[in-house]
């Protein structure tokens, strides 16, 4: 490979944190006009690499060359000025400002020293039309979907003369159409000679759009490959450092009635954002909720758990009719909910893993009966081991863990409270392949122990793998129910599409 067409090359990059070598002499080469996937499990060093590259962290060794010249970005602003733009999964633009203001923030077109609003809006509109977006650029950013916000972030980055564009998990919250559109844009940018670094957990997407692949594991470089020459199995085994164990397809309960007793029963149950529907979950059963983004999956979970209040129908838990006014009542009745937005509604960021794990149990016991510290440690140690949570210390703040491990801590939190019914809303979102498989195995194991599970997921293969019954939602109403041997990606997809 000639170094000449490399727009960005990293040589022997080292970054250490106390007790951890986050990057251990990593090399990485990005060519002009290519889409390069950066892959690895959680904790492999992808985020660290990106943060060093964009100046969030300072490196402890190695060199970064941009167009053959050594650079030392001190912060994201430096990196941007040098031509390295980053778009994160959580769009970090200013939601209350207009689209145009976001696009030109810090470099507004001026006239007589004042902002030339008309020119700014005109240019913003023209800029977005290049991305096939015809928007009202004077509307606040929040008026648009996450997908469009992401494209706006990309447009902003590219228009600031980006040579390198880093996309960190851009597709995590997009639906299939939006992903396809994003890929089109990526290919256009590639044709313009921009080098794109694409970080993702979705391996299919890697093959759909990437030219080359660099894999990291435990902070070290595993290798650099041409996408065309690397099979998906090989790719996964490189990432994991071992052959991927296919999760065993479980024997499904063919006849629903042969399962355990009815745990949760909804009768014409609905709320402001959900048409009344019927649904039942039995002990030891995994019921999947399928549907597109905004189809009502999350809304149903929130209604059942009394985050939102129901306006119609009945909810029966183990045969008894319940009306929950507060999440506390749902928790006390033996339910648990792993929310979709882990960062906002799930974790207690600055608090330790131990405290995060015991929180629900403590709340159930009441404030007066404090769990002795020794018991807390035992519980935390037990679940860290049982769920294989990767951490050196249970006293570490949870926000220092990777997404997959945070999710395991949240699962541990509920398991410790010994619930009867767990609602999992997108339990595997933003989680790497290894942890993904572990969480799915965990879900199976939990239901073998007699727990009832209601799992909302946008990943069909996942639902097919573990669900005993799949309820399909579309436009906030239940449109189909698939059970037993009928469950396949095909049948679910047909139901979602309304055929």
């Amino acid at each position, binding site marked *: 490979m000639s170094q000449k067409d490399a727009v960005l090359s990293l040589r022997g990059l080292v970054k250490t944190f*106390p*007790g951890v070598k986050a990057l251990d002499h990593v090399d990485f080469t990005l060519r002009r006009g290519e889409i390069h996937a950066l892959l690895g499990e959680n904790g492999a060093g992808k985020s660290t690499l990106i943060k060093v590259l964009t100046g969030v962290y*300072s490196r402890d060794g190695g060199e970064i060359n941009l167009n053959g010249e050594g650079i030392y970005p*001190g912060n994201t602003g430096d990196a941007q000025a040098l031509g390295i733009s980053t778009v994160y999964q959580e769009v970090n633009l200013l939601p209350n400002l207009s689209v145009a203001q976001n696009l030109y923030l810090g470099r507004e077109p001026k006239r007589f020293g004042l902002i030339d609003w008309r020119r700014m809006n005109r240019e913003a509109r023209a800029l977005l039309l290049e991305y096939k977006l015809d928007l009202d650029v004077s509307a606040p950013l929040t008026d648009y979907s996450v997908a469009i916000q992401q494209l706006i972030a990309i447009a902003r980055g590219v228009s600031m003369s980006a040579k390198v564009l880093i996309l960190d998990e851009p597709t995590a919250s997009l639906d299939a159409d939006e992903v396809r559109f994003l890929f089109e844009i990526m290919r256009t940018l590639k044709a313009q000679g921009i080098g794109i670094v694409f970080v993702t957990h979705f391996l299919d997407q890697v093959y759909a759009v990437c030219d080359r692949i660099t894999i990291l594991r435990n902070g070290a470089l595993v290798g650099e490959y041409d996408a065309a020459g690397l099979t998906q199995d090989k790719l996964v085994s490189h990432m994991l450092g071992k052959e991927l164990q296919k999760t065993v397809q479980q024997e499904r309960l063919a006849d629903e009635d042969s399962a355990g007793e009815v745990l949760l029963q909804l009768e014409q149950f609905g709320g402001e954002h959900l048409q009344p529907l019927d649904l039942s979950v039995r002990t030891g059963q995994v019921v999947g909720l399928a549907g597109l983004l905004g189809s009502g999956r999350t809304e149903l979970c929130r209604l059942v*758990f009394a*985050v939102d209040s129901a306006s119609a129908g009945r909810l029966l838990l183990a045969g008894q009719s319940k009306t929950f006014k*507060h*999440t*506390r*009542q*749902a*928790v*006390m009745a033996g339910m648990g*909910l792993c*929310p979709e937005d882990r960062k*906002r*509604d*799930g*974790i*207690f*960021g*600055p*608090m330790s893993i131990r*405290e995060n794990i015991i*929180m*629900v149990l*403590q*709340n159930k*016991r*009441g*404030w*007066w*009966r*404090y*769990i002795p510290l020794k018991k807390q440690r035992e519980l935390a140690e037990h679940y860290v081991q049982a769920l294989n949570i990767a951490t050196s210390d249970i*006293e570490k*703040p949870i926000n220092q863990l990777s997404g997959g491990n945070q999710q395991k801590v949240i699962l541990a*939190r509920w398991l410790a409270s010994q619930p009867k019914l767990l609602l999992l809303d997108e339990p595997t979102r933003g989680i790497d392949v290894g942890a993904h498989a572990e969480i799915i195995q965990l879900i199976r194991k939990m239901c073998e122990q007699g727990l009832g599970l209601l799992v909302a997921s946008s990943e069909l293969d996942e639902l097919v793998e573990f669900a005993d019954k799949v309820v399909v939602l579309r436009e906030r109403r239940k449109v189909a129910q698939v059970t037993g041997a009928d469950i396949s990606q095909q049948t679910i997809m047909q139901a979602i599409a309304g055929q």
Partner: protein
Amino acid sequence: MRYSDLSPELRRFIWPVAGLLVLLLLNAFIAPEFFQLEIKDGRLYGSLIDVLNRAAPVALLAIGMTLVIATGGIDLSVGSVMAIAGAVSATLIISGVDNIALIVAGGLLAGLAAGFVNGFLVGYFGIQPIVATLILMVAGRGVAQLINSGQIVTFHHSAFEYLGVGSLFGLPLPVVLVIITFVLVQLLMRRTALGLFVEGVGASASASHYIGINDKLIKLLVYCICGLCAALAGMVAAADIGGSDANNAGLWLELDAILAVVIGGASLMGGRFSIVLSIVGALIIQTLTITIILSGVPPKFNLLIKAAAIIIILLLQSPEFHRQVARLRKRQVA
């Protein structure tokens, strides 16, 4: 062992404590008699005791403020609540109530009511803490003036004055009250799960709600405790001067209390709290004042020196500052 190897908990403790020690050493250097203690009439006297005694009202406020800040809130009304509590006890005394328990209960009740109003507005109506408590900060002085009928009320009541000028076990009573309050609140927070819930609500009110913690009630509770602490501080201040001055009692002390908590390393975003460190913060503020007086610097420089010293302490605690220093050092080496 390097600084970066220390646990976050330990790192939080180092700077406030080191700051206090440095200030104390500085005092020993400026005025050798600073550490001298003598016992007169079974009571300790000396500059150190003076620091403790004078820091007591702010330390009391800081105990309550720590909890409020831990939930991500703030209470601007504590200075005014001091004035209200002082006015209530003074009025009770001059209207002929002689029972010390009743007088103190009256003051505390006023503080509790104030805290309840704050907590209710913040917890149950979702009003921003700074706005909700600003209301009582302004209105509270008005309430105190009404209670005092616009006068400065002076009184003689030896049992009540004992709160401000008395001593117990050789220590001034305000110091003893700080110790008792600290122990009670610490037990309440750390021997029950309340402290955990307070930190949980501060770390993420939304996550607390999702797991069924009654976040509204927790908020109400911390503002009530804060009101009680402020009332106690107000009565100590009134007892100290033998009178209630609605306009000046506790004036601007809410700012000192917030500063004490911040010097103690707490984040105004909420989350982790340490009452001990907030008290250390209150001691730092008071020690600094005494240091400036002892050093003989003209009084007009007092406020500036105080501000400069506090900036230094806050910088020493800031992780960003540490990063910048480390970066500079690396650049010099390279």
